[in-house]
């Protein structure tokens, strides 16, 4: 039987090679998918899923002010320690007793930095928000866990720089700049 099946298999294999050639030849004539970067740029609508460095989301009433409540969860969670959040201290008497102080949160230790729960009625004023992007691994824990929805990935595909300083961001200033250009309303991000 092998004397019959082997040639048939061989012919089928040869035919599969013809099919393969047809695939490459048709792709050869189809339009290209790449973009000639310095002359062309990716349309913003294609950048929705792009993960650039993180940026602050402006509040609905004032796009120049971040939604951030200054809880500092992002800086605590960051595995690369690339965030530095400074918020104004709350008066001592307004700080409530939090589970971490009761020792009940064994499954997910509460960050020590946080003085008040995310659902606090009295947000702390954000004083500065710095990102050191060269150590960021884009894990997204900060974006995922921000209780105020104040963080998102920017869509800056073309970020490039010649010095380390270029990758250290003052995100509050960046937000103010975006607001001045009228582009930082919640939801849609601009590079």
């Amino acid at each position, binding site marked *: 039987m092998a004397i019959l099946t082997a040639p048939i298999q*061989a012919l089928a294999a040869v035919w599969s*090679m013809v099919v*393969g*050639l047809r*695939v*490459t*030849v048709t*792709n*050869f*004539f*189809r*339009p*290209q*998918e*790449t973009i*000639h970067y310095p002359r062309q740029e990716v349309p913003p609508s294609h950048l929705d899923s792009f993960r650039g460095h993180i940026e602050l989301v402006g509040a609905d009433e004032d796009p120049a002010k971040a939604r951030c409540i200054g809880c500092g969860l992002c800086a605590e969670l960051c595995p690369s320690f690339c965030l530095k959040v400074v918020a104004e201290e709350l008066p001592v008497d307004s700080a409530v007793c939090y589970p971490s102080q009761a020792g009940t949160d064994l499954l997910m230790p509460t960050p020590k930095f946080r003085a008040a729960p995310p659902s606090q009625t009295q947000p702390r004023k954000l004083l500065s928000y710095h990102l050191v992007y060269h150590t960021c691994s884009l894990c997204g824990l900060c974006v995922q866990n921000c209780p105020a929805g104040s963080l998102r990935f920017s869509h800056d595909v073309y970020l490039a720089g010649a010095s380390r300083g270029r990758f250290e961001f003052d995100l509050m200033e960046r937000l103010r700049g975006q607001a001045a250009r009228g582009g930082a309303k919640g939801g849609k991000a601009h590079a």
Partner: protein
Amino acid sequence: MNGSLLTSVAPELLRLGIGLLALVGFIAANGMLLLYVERKVAGHVQRRPGPFEVGPHGLLQAFADAGKLVGKQLATPAGADGLLFWAAPLMAFMPVPLMFIAIPFGENLFGLETNLGLVLILSFAGFNVLALCLAGWGSNNKWSLLGAARAVSQAVAYEIPLLLSVLAVALMCGSLDLRQLASSQGGWPWQWNVAVQPLAFFIYFVCAVAETNRAPFDLAEAESELTAGVHTEYSGMGNGIFFLAEYANMIVVGCVATALFLGGAQGPFAPGPWWFLAKMYLLVTLVIFMRWTYPRVRFDQLLNLNWRWLMPLALVNLLATAFAVKLAG
């Protein structure tokens, strides 16, 4: 002065000299052209532009590459056999112009009139293996040596069915002269030898791709396993000459296939050389497309294909041809 010098040289010798010079130019120009075509094909097959920045549509990219290769330092690895190491690229390229002189590009467009053109080409084609062998041995590098071992066993294996398939055509036409083999066919596809000997053409084509070490049979340089195989230690123009020889060999096998199977320089409406070049470039383009279509075969698959399929088929084909020629004659 010049005129008297020219007339004092035998015309045959003069023709050979001019032919060799023209052919070296042809080979160099084609090396650049094919480098460009190869990269453009690779790009477009993968839906990207390929070389684009140097010159309009990257047309001058080959010149930039050549300039880079020429400008690079020629480094000899420590512990390498310098003589063998640098003899190898020269030996890879040296026989190439000699293979071209027997190829009939047109009715009167050939370098050397010989009735053993096919033998000449096939014997000089064997030099390439020796060059790869020397390169692998002289590099003092285990990848190079493994690549050389593969190159030799591959070439030994594929030379045999190649010869057998070519022999079938030679038997049919009763000649080893490429010009005579080409002119014994007609101008239309159904008058070509490929219509009578499709199996021989198929075997020849597969073996030719393997002989020139082109993907999917580029086991000798297999970059995923052997970095670059025999080319690993070569820098600058040493590597460049190997590449030039590879492209030149592609053209040689394309030329031989055109002359043997595709009617050579014959065709309707246009002068012969254009037909010859068109057919040859078509085959070379096919080889380039094959490289960007098929994955590299494993070494045992390579040898299995040869010894279990191509060899017996070529033998059967040759025997059948011999019978047919005897009966018809």
